[in-house]
């Protein structure tokens, strides 16, 4: 499978997924169903995660078709700008969805989620449209009306890249934040996982679990700095096998977290007090989480030496 193939496979998920997640979320208000609301939020968070590899695979897809003289680079850049803006709103929506899932009883973020998911769904439709325009001459139209207005807010890919590479100290600062985020994330996730595995059983689980917003804050900082680094040097990361394996490990961590929280496993450990042992299923998820997070660190470190390991098409 090539990166172009991956891009064409993944690109449906953020577009359809955002609409589905938003639809379920709205339906939950009509039915006053907590389960439905949580389902909608989980879909939005999952789509926000899947949007990352979709975005990252775009450069590979661009490389695959850019030699074709019938392909317009202006149309590709328009698509890339649209995707960048949509990704920003998608990730904010995902972060809000996770915050709402965390709060459970407080509804203050619901309105913000409605607004951001709605805007994201619209922006995603535009990303799909501009992407389709690259190859499908039969649907191609000029930007007009609302899409012309949106286009005004879309960053020009080259300008954004220049801004991120404006000097090496800004780059160094982003990398610094990436490492500080790493320490915060591993510290907080690590202590919870270690407790679930049966070490340091003197801790009750619930208070350690309340550190998870700090872990998510670390993950948020690293997602932001990571995406900015990618936008700054897209070819450096795109054709790198270690980078893609790192992204795969992050997606697997999302799956691991979903399996942990959405099955009965989380409920089986939530109330464990000092000295109480977690069931084997919980230990499995804790071990997987630890192994995958350290794999993410290791693969991240190997990006430098594996740059250029994927042949451009």
């Amino acid at each position, binding site marked *: 499978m090539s990166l172009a193939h991956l891009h064409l496979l993944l690109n449906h998920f953020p577009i359809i997924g955002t609409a589905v997640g938003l639809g379920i979320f709205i339906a939950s208000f009509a039915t006053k169903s907590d389960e439905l609301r949580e389902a909608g939020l989980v879909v939005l968070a999952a789509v926000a995660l899947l949007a990352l590899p979709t975005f990252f695979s775009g450069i590979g897809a661009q490389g695959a078709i850019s030699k074709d003289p019938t392909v317009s680079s202006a149309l590709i850049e328009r698509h890339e700008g649209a995707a960048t803006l949509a990704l920003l709103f998608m990730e904010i929506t995902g972060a809000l969805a996770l915050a709402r899932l965390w709060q459970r009883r407080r509804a203050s973020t619901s309105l913000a989620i409605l607004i951001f998911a709605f805007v994201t769904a619209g922006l995603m439709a535009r990303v799909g449209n501009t992407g389709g325009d690259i190859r499908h001459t039969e649907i191609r139209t000029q930007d007009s009306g609302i899409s012309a207005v949106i286009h005004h807010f879309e960053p020009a890919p080259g300008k954004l890249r220049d801004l991120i590479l404006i000097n090496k100290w800004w780059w160094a600062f982003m990398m610094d934040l990436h490492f500080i985020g790493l320490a915060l994330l591993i510290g907080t996730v690590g202590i919870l996982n270690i407790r679930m595995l049966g070490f340091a059983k003197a801790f009750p689980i619930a208070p350690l679990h309340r550190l998870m917003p700090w872990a998510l804050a670390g993950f948020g900082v690293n997602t932001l700095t990571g995406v900015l680094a990618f936008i700054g040097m897209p070819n450096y990361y795109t054709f790198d096998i270690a980078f893609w394996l790192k992204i795969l490990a992050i997606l697997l961590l999302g799956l691991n977290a979903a399996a942990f929280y959405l099955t009965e496993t989380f409920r089986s450990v939530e109330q464990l007090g000092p000295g109480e042992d977690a069931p084997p299923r919980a230990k499995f998820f804790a071990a997987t989480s630890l192994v995958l997070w350290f794999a993410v660190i290791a693969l991240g470190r190997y*990006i430098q030496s594996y740059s250029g390991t994927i042949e451009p098409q």
Partner: protein
Amino acid sequence: METSRDFFDPNSRTTERRPNRRCYASEGSSASAACTTLPCKADPRSLNTKNRSIVFAAMALPPVFLRSIEASSFSTWLRESDSPFAFYFILLFHTFGLALLVGGNAVMDLRLLGVERSIPLAPLKRIFPIMWAGFAINAASGLLLLIAYPTKALTNPLFYTKLLLIAFAVWVMTKLKSRVFDDSSLDEAAMVARGRPLAKWSLVLWIAAITAGRLLAYTYKYITYPC
């Protein structure tokens, strides 16, 4: 398609390995002014001093010392091997150690600073072995990284700053252990009262240490001994 690897690649070994041209003596000429801080060859005739032999020894020491480390087969292998178990393997353990050491400290510091007070304080003592394991991993991997690039590290003032920051941070860590966690007569309130100022320093110092470490990749003057 732009070639970002060549254009701007602060992280890449392709640029990290690129020698600092300013500091290379071209054929037949002496090193340029930018490089005079690192002596290539100590010349006793140029020394107009009584302690000629001592100064001569001092001038000869850095080139002999740094060059002989770099010329060793182990240092060369670490630096130049394409094996995934050479330089980047060490670097990855340096990051694992960072995660254990600073991650553990972060949880402890945040708790002492008032985050999630429902976490019982006394059992946090159990994090110390993890943090010490992280410290041991990083001392060992740090030494290996130093063997790989001795000139790069030792000619950068920031490297000494980083070591100093780590020394302070570890000192604060031992104080946290002895003053807060080893004193079993303290209740939680007293532990927090004693631990708070230490926790603040700990957080600041570890963030500063990470920052100094990261900046080493962008501030070095020489990559290997220039002559």
